[in-house]
């Protein structure tokens, strides 16, 4: 088997409480593996230890016990960060830099320079739809634009792994969908993604595998399809079905040992409806 993109073994993190003896358990004996190419969703209520887990994987916080690796390299080493891009929760970048300057700065930190850096900057800004905002300072960016520049900087050295902490928090539905599409695009290119989000609908759309954290403990883990499919049921969606056809299907079902559990008009999602009402989804992004 290939080296896992992320391997977390028996991870525990205790935070001391100032002026008190006891400690907060942020993560408790967590073990999980993210295979290359997967999109892994880490779910859980606020304070369940998602961000802490991510920070430990990135070597920003040291574990109380247990270990984590990125593509086989221990998270405590600086080298392990070569192959990973990180978008922190509610990121703020340097407000005094423009979009292009931000990309150049992070690119230089990853050892890029010269023509290659300029090329990469252009390419990524175009990818996240910010080429028109490249020369504007980040102080004037909207939340959605900040998240997108955050994704672009995470991708600057072309890492094989992305770690995204609530990439769509606080972003409007259209912006949130753009981010979702970007993640799907990364997935198509074979980039592994670990993300956490509260938007369960979105997680369901993009994740292959999920883990649910509750008070620092991994309570469920597995392939998304396995976890939420109802094994003995099948959905059938018809268009322009006449009452006769429906009656015939009902009769056919009656002859077999199946049973119609429910018959209803499917509804569009509120998201799709909202986007329809608020204009074309292909609006000029980056000009909000």
């Amino acid at each position, binding site marked *: 088997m290939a080296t896992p993109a992320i391997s977390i073994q028996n991870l525990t993190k205790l935070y001391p409480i100032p002026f008190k003896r006891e400690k907060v358990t942020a993560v408790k004996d967590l073990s999980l593996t993210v295979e290359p190419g997967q999109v892994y969703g880490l779910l859980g209520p606020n304070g369940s230890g998602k961000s802490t887990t991510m920070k430990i994987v990135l070597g920003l916080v040291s574990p109380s016990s247990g270990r984590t690796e990125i593509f086989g390299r221990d998270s405590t080493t600086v080298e392990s960060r070569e192959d990973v891009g990180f978008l922190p929760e509610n990121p703020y970048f340097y407000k005094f830099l423009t979009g292009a300057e931000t990309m150049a700065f992070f690119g230089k*930190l990853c*050892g890029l320079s010269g023509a290659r850096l300029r090329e990469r900057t252009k390419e990524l800004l175009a990818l996240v739809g910010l080429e028109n905002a490249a020369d504007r300072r980040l102080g004037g960016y909207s939340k959605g634009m900040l998240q997108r520049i955050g994704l672009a900087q995470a991708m600057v050295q072309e890492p094989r792994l992305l770690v995204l902490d609530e990439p769509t928090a606080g972003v409007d539905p259209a912006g949130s969908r753009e981010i979702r599409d970007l993640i799907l695009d990364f997935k198509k290119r074979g980039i592994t993604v670990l993300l956490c989000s509260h938007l369960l609908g979105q997680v369901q759309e993009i994740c292959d595998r999920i883990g649910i954290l509750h008070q620092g403990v991994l309570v469920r883990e597995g392939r998304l399809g396995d976890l939420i499919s109802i094994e003995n049921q099948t959905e059938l969606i018809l268009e322009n079905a006449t009452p006769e056809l429906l009656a015939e299907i009902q009769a056919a079902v009656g002859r077999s040992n199946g049973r119609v559990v429910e018959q209803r008009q499917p509804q569009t999602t509120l998201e799709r409806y909202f986007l329809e009402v608020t204009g074309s989804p292909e609006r000029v992004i980056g000009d909000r």
Partner: protein
Amino acid sequence: MTAPAATPHKAFSLARVYAIAANTLLELVRLKVFYFLLLFALLGIGVSFFTSKMTFQEQSQVLKHAALGMMSIFTWLLAVLATAMLLPKDIEERTLYTILAKPVPRLEYLLGKLAGVLALLAIALAVMVAMFALVLYAQQQSALAAVASQLAPGPDLEAARQQVRADTFTANLVPGIALIYVKAAVCAAVTLLLSTFASSSIFTIIVSVMVFIIGHVQPIAREYLMITEKGASELARFFLGLVALLIPDMRAFTLLDDLAVAIPFELFMQTAGLGVLYVAVYFLVGYLVFAGKEL
């Protein structure tokens, strides 16, 4: 997509330190608040031109004292204020996460921050020195005009002119200004060290100011103890020794008490060397604290 960045990781990279330093400098330069500080300093230096009617030598001395004092204070103030905000800002705005999530060792990050501040101080001091030189020059010209109107052309006038020239741009100004910079660098390094464990910039600034004051008074206290040898307890001696070790004698960086006397080169090198040593030690201790810090 372009080929992935295949450069192997370097344990230490000057290019990364440079990127962080340049970014820090840019951050500070784009903060408008420091322009006011610089403006005040320039005004202060400019005003010293209009010092009262004294003989030229006296006036020149007063101007130099006032201007150098002004430069020293403002460079120090800039060092403390600019350095104190760097880490807290990066932590609060989470930019530190994004930077350290890249393959950047913490040592390089901290070094870049210090280098950025030192570059800012160099620029600010250079601007002040330019202003100072301008004022000195103006004063020299008015003094030259004055002697020309008082003396008839001849060897006496020539001698007076020579004297005026010799009195304005004296050689000891260069080491004097260099030491102002070193002193500010020491204070910047102390501030950076403090900010690695302080929980707020206000705390950092207050303690840094206290260090500055202690640095000025501790040699006085030591002299006092030397004189009253019997009165000093072992404990007081030990304590003072410890303080003297932790904080350099800040007065040592002001060599220009008597502007007419040239600064011995050896003394200058010793003082500057001591300053650089303190910067290095403060930085390393700061790094050790920062390396183990939970973010």
